[in-house]
């Protein structure tokens, strides 16, 4: 599984990245959590607001800092 956090590096983007890492750790699942900070790539994903959360190339959430529990529900 590949989890992408799309955002240009703001505090909320970093928080979402941390929450995603925590969720993966809690679930003990195998997933790569990566940041996507290139604005062109973010735009290509059709994302209008950041941070965005994507799993295996599919955007699941936009403009929201998902909690660890919310992320766990999405990826489990």
């Amino acid at each position, binding site marked *: 599984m590949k989890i992408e956090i799309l955002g240009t590096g703001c505090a909320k983007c970093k928080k979402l990245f941390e929450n995603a890492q925590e969720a993966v750790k809690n679930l003990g699942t195998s997933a790569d959590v990566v940041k996507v900070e290139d604005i062109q790539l973010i735009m290509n*994903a059709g994302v*209008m607001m950041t941070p965005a959360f994507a799993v295996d190339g599919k955007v699941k959430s936009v403009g929201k800092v998902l909690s660890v529990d919310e992320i766990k529900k999405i990826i489990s």
Partner: protein
Amino acid sequence: MAEECCSPSEILIFTCSGSSNVGQVANQAAVDLQQEGIGKMLCLAGIGGHVSGMIASAQSAKRLVGIDGCSVACTKKTMEHVGLSLTDYVLITALGYEKGPYSGTMDKKAVDKIKDEMKKQIVKPIKIEVK
């Protein structure tokens, strides 16, 4: 486009951008509304194409504004197809304009009328249905 960080766009604007005269008026009205800072345009084709980032962006917006040129209502139907409802809507032919081929000359008076109509709707609070 991801211009803002951390704050959902308040208003996203969708239009059929159809090939007819009224479709082109719809598109121009949306372009003008965006340039005036009323909202941001998002591609209706992206919604129809199930581009996940665009659908998620629309889901996070507070108002979804739609402009259709004619009663075929492609904007409204495309949004409904993915489970989204427009909060504000203008149907151009319902305002007395007749659908026909686009001549290449934009009807600026029509564009202004559509913009005014949409602005009137956008200042109104959104109706929330209580079940």
